[in-house]
């Protein structure tokens, strides 16, 4: 279980955090690594992993009560790191279930909604998806067209289309963000409700071992208790995104480590001209750069985790780490791909898969440039979005 840990970050971790990392890593090595390339190639999500995620306690791991493990944020982050060292799609499943679906129910749901959904979601028996993005509203979700109206006898009617929705075709319940009287609200929509359809988006180069769907809601009628009572306005979905982005910060480090380790070990064995390619300065410069960026990301993200644990973080700090870590993970994946030469494009090695996956990670949960604008606004006080 070699660790890329150039700055002895291990010493900053608590015992339970190390145990989480090591057990999740062992699980990923044994259960994810052997099957993931095949799933990626076939464009399928390994559904039989879901009960195993649940047994490990990975679903909603940092939530308290309702069958959740109640881990600290750093332990949770390390679990996401190890999952994404396996595959971004596998990590995405857990992020969506825990941070995007269980978190809003936990934070904004009624007691009845919590009892009804959270224990089953922690057990992996109820799968959720998070519908915010629409075909015409990606970076600008505030403009969403999906609309909810009150029905005369109580309850709501929802109409709209959501696109790029992870777990859409797997989900039993969709969290649909829709405008009610002009303000954004969250609705828990059982996916078997009449008028709800999910269409799998298959023809993609990236995140192939993850289900991505388009959701169409046509006169979907839900009861009064489908509404998440605790929040109104964009704060609802944005606070979920903060949680998920935090997990992505760690996940990106995992993908980067996977690429770096593969490239270093390959370069030591691969002989060209008269010696292993690891012995050439140009290759060493790549490794020095990769290790530097991984180490910086580790320091940054651990500090972010501690801030989050103490409740003192600001969402902009998560933006900084998401933007930095994913950018460098993608850069490291591309460099590692180069180091492997022709073999770098093969399914046999995880690098091509990480590289393609990271293109999604770069875009979802706020694109790189949108996080740049969030930081820009924070620095200058002037929003540059419009």
């Amino acid at each position, binding site marked *: *279980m*070699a660790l890329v840990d150039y700055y002895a970050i291990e010493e900053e971790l608590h015992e339970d955090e*190390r*145990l989480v990392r090591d*057990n999740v890593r062992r699980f990923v090595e044994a259960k994810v690594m052997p099957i993931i390339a095949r799933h990626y190639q076939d464009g399928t999500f390994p559904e039989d992993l879901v009960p195993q995620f649940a047994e490990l306690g990975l679903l909603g*791991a940092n939530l308290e009560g309702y069958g959740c*493990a109640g881990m600290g944020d750093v332990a949770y982050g390390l*679990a996401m790191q190890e999952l994404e060292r396996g595959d971004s799609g596998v990590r995405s499943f857990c992020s969506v279930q825990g941070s995007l679906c269980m978190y809003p129910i936990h934070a904004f749901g009624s007691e009845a909604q919590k009892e009804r959904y959270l224990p089953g979601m922690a057990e992996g028996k109820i799968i959720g998806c998070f519908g915010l993005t629409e075909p015409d509203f990606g970076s600008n979700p505030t403009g969403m067209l999906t609309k909810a109206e009150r029905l005369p006898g109580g309850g709501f009617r929802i109409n709209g289309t959501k696109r790029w929705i992870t777990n859409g075709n797997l989900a039993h319940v969709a969290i649909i963000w829709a405008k009610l009287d002009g303000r954004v609200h969250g609705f828990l929509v059982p996916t078997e409700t009449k008028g709800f359809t999910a269409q799998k988006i298959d023809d993609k180069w990236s995140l192939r071992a993850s289900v991505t769907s388009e959701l169409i809601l046509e006169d979907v009628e839900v009861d009064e208790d489908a509404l998440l009572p605790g929040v109104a306005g964009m704060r609802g979905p944005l606070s979920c995104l903060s949680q998920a982005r935090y997990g992505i910060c760690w996940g990106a480090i995992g993908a980067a480590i996977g690429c770096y380790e593969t490239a270093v070990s390959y370069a030591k064995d691969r002989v060209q001209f008269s010696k292993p390619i690891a012995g050439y300065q140009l290759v060493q410069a790549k490794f020095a750069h990769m290790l530097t960026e991984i180490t910086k990301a580790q320091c940054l993200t651990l500090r972010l985790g501690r801030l989050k644990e103490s409740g003192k973080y600001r969402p902009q700090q998560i933006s900084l780490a998401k933007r930095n870590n994913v950018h460098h993970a993608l850069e490291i994946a591309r460099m590692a791909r180069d180091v492997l030469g022709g073999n770098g494009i093969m399914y046999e090695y995880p690098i091509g898969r990480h590289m393609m996956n990271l293109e999604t990670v770069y875009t979802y949960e706020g694109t790189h440039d949108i996080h740049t604008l969030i930081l820009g606004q924070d620095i200058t006080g002037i929003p540059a979005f419009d």
Partner: protein
Amino acid sequence: MKILVPVKRVADPDNANKVKVSGDGTKVTSDGLEWKMNPFDEWSLEAALRLTENGSSKDRVGEVVLVSIGPKDAVQTIRQGLAMGAERGILVESDDDSLDSHVVAQVIAAIAAEEKPDVIFFGKQSADGDSNVAGTKLAEMLDWPLVNYAMAISTDDEGKSFTVKRELDVGQQTLKVQSPCVFTSSDRILQPESVKNGVTPADFAYPESEGGRYASLKGIMKAKKKPVDEKSLADLGVEAKRVNEYVKFDLPPARSGSTTFVESVEELVQKLHSDAKVL
């Protein structure tokens, strides 16, 4: 049923290239090593957990007590076992260099006198020293029955007696032993139906596995609150006096050779024959 499981931390065998030997060759230096529970102890711990739970409901019906002898950070190995499900731990503080199988057996014997377990479940050997002595020596010291390399264990009287199967080159041996007793295990103990405790439903089978169970995140949270007693060798009346003296450790010779890619099976066979000369 109460089972004592000694667990040792060893340098991660998957990372054996990080093991270094001191200048004079008399000991393995521990700086920079990554530690892991001795895999053979992990098999035995898994078997002990299966003996003391309802496998289906996961309710605990007995007690597993972990003991580790080593420096303070060996507590992490105990904590891993607690997170897997054991109830409590005992850390006997000692530096690694003052231990050998004899001292270990003495320590466990002293703890057995206090704890009075039904079973002491050792790993068959440790992945670093490979001595294969401690369990046997302990059984001898305590004058308890010993079953080495158990591949299947069952009890129908809550651990007062056990039927144990062992794998031999020539077949299988079945023994019946009364507790208290000492076991070590073979990897076959991890097979889905190797452990029967009369509580787990007869139709329940554990998943196929090459090691112990993963510690779940909830298990890890619970383990934080489980007690770990700290003791010194002196508390137990054991003197750290080794009977073995280590004269010299040598690392395995460095790997030589390089990777060659071949185009076809014919070329592979030809190369194995003419270049590698192994055919």
